[in-house]
């Protein structure tokens, strides 16, 4: 049993049409309790008007990311004991995205940038052809595999101060996706990828501050992926071909 029977939880309320304000709740403490459970308890028992978002509950969908004590996290996979500051937790909507209401952020800018970074496969084959044999251990494939498990939760985007200062910046997740595709032997248009990440707000806007890698709940490394893109674009500039 936990030592304390209540947690003091401060939740950021409000949205575009109402002023932002913190609101504090006393929430019963349990042994097995995630930050999502705490937020859910408030909505289900104390204040039915609280808005938040979640779906899978197990760290697969990336719907429930929020700022928890100043750090962007998947709330469904964050045990309360890991973030407790004394007896308190502060929860807010993800940073760097417009707030829809309370803890729910509008993720559209994040996905618009995913698309803008050419974050979609450019086919070399059709459904009528066999699947290409691909050696799983080549360096190229390893580089592609390194970032492939991103669940687009936007934690890195929210952690990044370059995004905060530069609204055009595509952000770590989109650029990591571009790097993954650039290393995918099946992708037909690698030049289009390099073009997409070389424009305004592209990979060259990154200052390698590494918050993306430091806070990625999946332990991925967008920082290195973005460095890879910088390297590839520089190489192309000097006439080097991949």
């Amino acid at each position, binding site marked *: 049993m936990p030592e304390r029977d209540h947690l003091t939880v401060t939740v950021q309320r409000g949205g575009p049409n109402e002023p932002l304000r913190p609101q504090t709740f006393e929430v019963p403490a349990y042994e097995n*309790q995630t930050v999502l459970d705490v937020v859910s308890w408030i909505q289900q028992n104390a204040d039915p008007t609280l808005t938040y978002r979640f779906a899978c509950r197990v760290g*697969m*969908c990336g719907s429930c990311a929020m700022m928890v004590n100043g750090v962007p996290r998947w709330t469904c*996979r964050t045990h309360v004991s890991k973030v407790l500051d004394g007896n308190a937790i502060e929860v807010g909507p993800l940073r760097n995205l417009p707030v829809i209401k309370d803890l729910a952020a509008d993720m559209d800018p994040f996905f618009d940038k995913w698309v803008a970074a050419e974050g*979609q496969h450019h086919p070399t084959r059709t459904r009528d052809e066999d699947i290409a044999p691909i050696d799983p251990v080549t360096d190229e494939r390893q580089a592609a*595999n390194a970032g492939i498990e991103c669940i687009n939760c936007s934690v890195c985007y929210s952690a990044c101060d370059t995004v905060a200062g530069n609204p055009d910046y595509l952000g770590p997740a989109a650029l990591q996706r571009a790097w993954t595709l650039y290393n995918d032997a099946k992708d037909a248009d690698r030049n289009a990828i390099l073009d997409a990440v070389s424009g305004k707000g592209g990979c060259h806007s990154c200052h390698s501050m590494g918050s993306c890698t430091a806070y990625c709940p999946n332990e991925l490394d967008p920082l290195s992926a973005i460095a890879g893109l910088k390297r590839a674009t520089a190489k192309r500039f000097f006439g080097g071909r991949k």
Partner: protein
Amino acid sequence: MFSTKDIDWHDTDILILGTGGAGMFAALHAMQSAPEGTKVTIAVKGLIGKCGCTRMVQGGYNVALGGGDSVERHFMDTIEGGKWLPNQDMAWRLCEQAVVRIRELENEIGCFFDRNPDGTLHQKAFAGQTADRTVHKGDLTGIEIINRLMEQVLSRPVEKLQEHRAIGLIPTRDGASLAGVLMIDMRTGRFRFVRAKTVLMATGGGPTMYKYHTPSGDKSMDGLAMALRVGLPLRDMEMVQFHPTGLLAGDHTRMTGTVLEEGLRGAGGQLVNHAGQRFMFDYDAKGERATRDVVSRGIYAEMRKNNNPEQEGVFISMSHLGPDMVREKFKGMVKRCADCGFDLAGGKVEVVPTAHYFMGGVVVDVDTRTAMEGLYVAGEDAGGAHGSNRLGGNGVANSTVYGGIAGDVMGADIRKMGALREPDESVLEAELVRACHPLTRKPELVLPLRKQLQDAMWDEVGVMRTEAGLKRGLGRIAEISDALMDVGVASESLAFNLTWHDWLNLRSLCDISEVITQAALARENSRGAHFREDFPDPGAMEESYFTVARQVDGAVEVGREDVQFTIVRPGETVLPEGEPETLVAAQ
């Protein structure tokens, strides 16, 4: 409170409800097959690709790609796994088209599935399969499939209605065709009626009316509840698949019910009861490696024997395999447990059977068409392909295959359709009134009723069923259902009002819970996921029937229809003579 004048009207050509594997494939195929200039709209209760269950697929994708395996073998496994209840034409099309769909996923959508050292696709065998057939990406196959599909959809000119919840299928005045779908724009709380020439319902099933359940939190059977209200026939509604090992962490946490993967048992994980003893060999010669339904019943029986409220479940123990080995082989699972405060590698974790997948659904043909013109259904909302039991790896194959088919068929059918249809205003109004009902009552907590329903379903309509229990269940569901109508929701602001949606979710769950229970009463034998303690025998395969439920004048009626053995009869096979029974090496 609201009148139909408050509804925003919105027109499109093809409307797709849901962004799982079925919805997104439908959108992509509709873009390819429909005439130029066709407007395609995709609406979803959460965010595109984020809500729903395709993303949560761990195991993989069943597809026969040669090497001894064949579409015939995949088909036979599906029929035998479904205990001869599947619609054979649907099952055949599933197995046949999975081959095309997996190539599409790899070649056009850009998925990357795990490879063998020689570069070919790696395939493994799940329980109930007679060949190494399941294509996968580690144990996060769903994430790879959905992320790649999502990118393709986002980069195309598809209209996106996110956080739009469908609340009613609105037919034309004669009731023969669908005019459109009434929705709530959850972000603003406004009603929106979307007219379309064709509508695909791919909202996913998701039996979350059970105390322990695996599906995503947004799942609440809305699609099937809408189909029920509009009078469509629903088949196999008693067939709820339980996964044997859901995490048990108390009823105050959303972690409870989430799946601990099948592979743990396959790798030698042991199940021990409250007394610290292994028990699965008391129930099946394969022990922990028996199929999902058998292990679920074994665990359930042990739980009943124990009957200790302090320690409800049983334990899965991996530590005898060496904690380091477990940590390495099941990295994701160990981390997930650790994040939630459990030590899977070195300790033991309390587990319980958990409602996982819904085999039942709307009666459709092999082209996803329903009895109502303009309405198509694919994925977990559609019944028939799996019969009484779904094989691991057939779920995502089903949603992607039939989603794609639905897109093709809608794109073709729309050429024959003229103008948008006019809705039956009285149904539109009735649906509006229904959705607004809680806003006219005194606000109360919704959660306690949801917990009551989940307890009732678990106790009376769960892993093992009896006539007496099912009848008790009907009574309990009716009480909860009535009580819900007296629970109100504060109506000051309807913008992103989750509690209103909790109410609507529970409304759908109550309606479908009743159908599940009625269908379970109607099936007086035990097949696949459905187990009647008072009728433990499966009955003659030759005389297999499936249940069909529909709502007539506000009451649920369940009938039986004979299974048509259109391709193969029980006791026969479509495999060539001399084919070995299984190609999987014994473990």
